[in-house]
């Protein structure tokens, strides 16, 4: 195969190629070295573990695609988790509590979008402020204490399975399919990528930039809220310190999955695969008894390596 053919091949590779390849290699290696890796229990464990970070990553991806960012998702998940727990512990039923909490999440997203789209403040700054503000609200609403005394049924969802698949994982799959459809098969999706590639050009073409910004940030906050509710279901308590630094995990998952922080590029499959890769690494590190400090180093190096390979491919695509 000569260089031209190789180049052509690289151009056809989808953006998720590297993350999927790495994950598959890691799975094969772990199956060979860790005796308990490929067991029904462990796979089911990992499915539960990946779901919440996967859902948050899908949301953050939507903001990254329009060349934005959402650093507030971890705090929003904690804030909304505390809200739903407070409502539940005060005797409001599950439907009302969850409904009101999701509304709060949509409101948070609208505020972020207004800051970015109407006031013109950089997304990094708006959502960095949000990271502080919503963590503060989480502490205020909980009084700095763990919120307990929730109805026992709250646990049932996250512990349950459907056809052998954990409900949490099914939830992530449903979210992934809906957002994937939105991004890949609708006009809204095309607009989002267009804004991320060149916001000014998109505006001149008559694309409603603010409405699209609103959609991206509401999706991000809304999914972070959903993740917060699921976290409460998993833990059967809400603590104002939960979901700490989840925004970084989510951004890392999206970027390792081929999203570009400059916008216009990234897929749901990539973000989910990124989340699976990190969950697998965490699981593998415990099973192989890798020193926890080395685990952090390895994870960081992996992010750098995957993004480097991905950038090489991008350069080839643009003919450099």
């Amino acid at each position, binding site marked *: 195969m000569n260089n031209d053919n190789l180049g052509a091949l690289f151009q056809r590779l989808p953006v998720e190629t590297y993350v999927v390849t790495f994950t598959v290699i890691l799975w094969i290696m772990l199956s060979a070295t*860790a005796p*308990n*890796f490929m*067991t029904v*229990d*462990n796979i089911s*464990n990992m499915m539960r*573990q990946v779901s*919440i970070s996967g859902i948050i990553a899908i949301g953050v991806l939507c903001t990254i695609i329009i060349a934005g960012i959402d650093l507030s998702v971890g705090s929003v998940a904690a804030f909304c988790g505390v809200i739903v727990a407070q409502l539940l512990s005060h005797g409001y039923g599950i439907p009302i509590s969850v409904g009101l909490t999701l509304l709060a999440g949509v409101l948070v997203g609208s505020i972020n979008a207004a800051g970015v789209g109407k006031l013109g403040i950089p997304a990094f700054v708006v959502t960095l402020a949000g990271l502080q503000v919503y963590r*503060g609200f989480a*502490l205020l609403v909980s*009084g*700095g*204490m*763990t*919120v*307990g*005394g929730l109805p026992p049924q709250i*646990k049932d969802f996250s*512990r349950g399975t459907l056809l052998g698949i954990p409900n949490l994982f099914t939830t992530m799959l449903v979210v992934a399919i809906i957002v994937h459809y939105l991004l890949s098969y609708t006009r809204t999706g095309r607009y989002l990528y267009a804004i991320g590639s060149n916001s000014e050009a998109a505006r001149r073409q008559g694309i409603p930039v603010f409405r699209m910004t609103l959609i991206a940030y509401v999706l991000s906050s809304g999914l972070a809220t959903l993740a917060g509710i699921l*976290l409460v279901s*998993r*833990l*059967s*308590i809400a*603590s*104002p*310190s*939960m*979901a*700490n*630094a989840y925004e970084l995990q989510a951004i890392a998952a999206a970027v390792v999955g081929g999203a570009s922080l400059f916008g216009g590029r990234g897929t749901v499959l990539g973000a989910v695969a990124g989340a699976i890769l990190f969950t697998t690494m*965490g*699981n593998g590190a*415990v*099973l192989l*008894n890798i020193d*926890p*400090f080395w685990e952090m180093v390895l994870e960081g190096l992996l992010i750098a390596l995957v993004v480097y390979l991905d950038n090489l491919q991008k350069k080839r695509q643009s003919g450099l």
Partner: protein
Amino acid sequence: MFRKITLAASVAALALMAGPQAHAQDTIAVIVKATTSEYWQTVFKGAEAAGKELGVKIEELGTPKDDAAGQIAVLEGAAGKKPAAIVISPTIFEALGDPVAAVTKAGIPVIIIDSGAKTDKFASFLTTDNVAGGKAAADAMASCIKERTGKVAGKVAFITAMAGHESLDSRDKGFKDGVAAYPDLKLVGNRVANNEEAEGMSLTADMLTKDSDLVGIFADNAQMGTGAGTSISEKKLGDKLCLVAFDADKGEVEHLNDGSIYAVIVQDPFMMGYGGVFNGFAAAHGVRLPKNIDTGVGAVTKKNMNDAAFAGLMDVTKRKMSPYTGN
């Protein structure tokens, strides 16, 4: 738990000596590490209780989260207002040493609580012996294993909430030393989390995947205890695995009740706030205090959690201070 009796008794004597009305305008500043945590809120509650009994005004200060530079600014600001005494829990040992010494030099007595500072210029230091706490966890785990299997043998592991925190490292050291005293207990793993419940939960599940024959896990703070307890409860392993965790927040108490946590190691943050203020008041009136005071730890299981000696440690609203019993 019982070592504090001497403290409470001396404090009671002081209270009688000084009389609450005599110094009604005194203010004592209480500076904690992180105002947003349940633990430090309990310290404030203890300080308030002592303030009420002494008739002094308590100023509750601190940074929202661990922030040494911020805490130094808070300390300097508080000292500028010339309170009768300052009670402080230094965020970082090295960083707060000189600022604490400077306040002492300015003539304001400083009572240190919970964690130390790199100086000997303070009036008194009230703290939990974390190494003893870790050892108590190992002993509670051993008696649980014995209770269930008839012998103290098998694989055990522990979860560290965060890397590089002096109090957590001391607990872990105490636990490791404690386990070493039982020749048939084998320490097979240690994971470090990001002080986040869900991570504690995942690590517990993964550790059980690696060693399905684990008989005991030690979780070294409230977040890890809640996470590990949730994982054990989800797997319904409460009657097989002996989980022992530090502190007693709502999540942990829930799992103590449902049997997923065998024992919690409780400290006495209320007494740190209460005793801190009392000692600050005493020092402000020229009383020489013992340099080091251990506020004690206790191992609480489902069986003894409602005993009078522990009820106030588990739930601060049930706390009744009697100067003659310490609880």
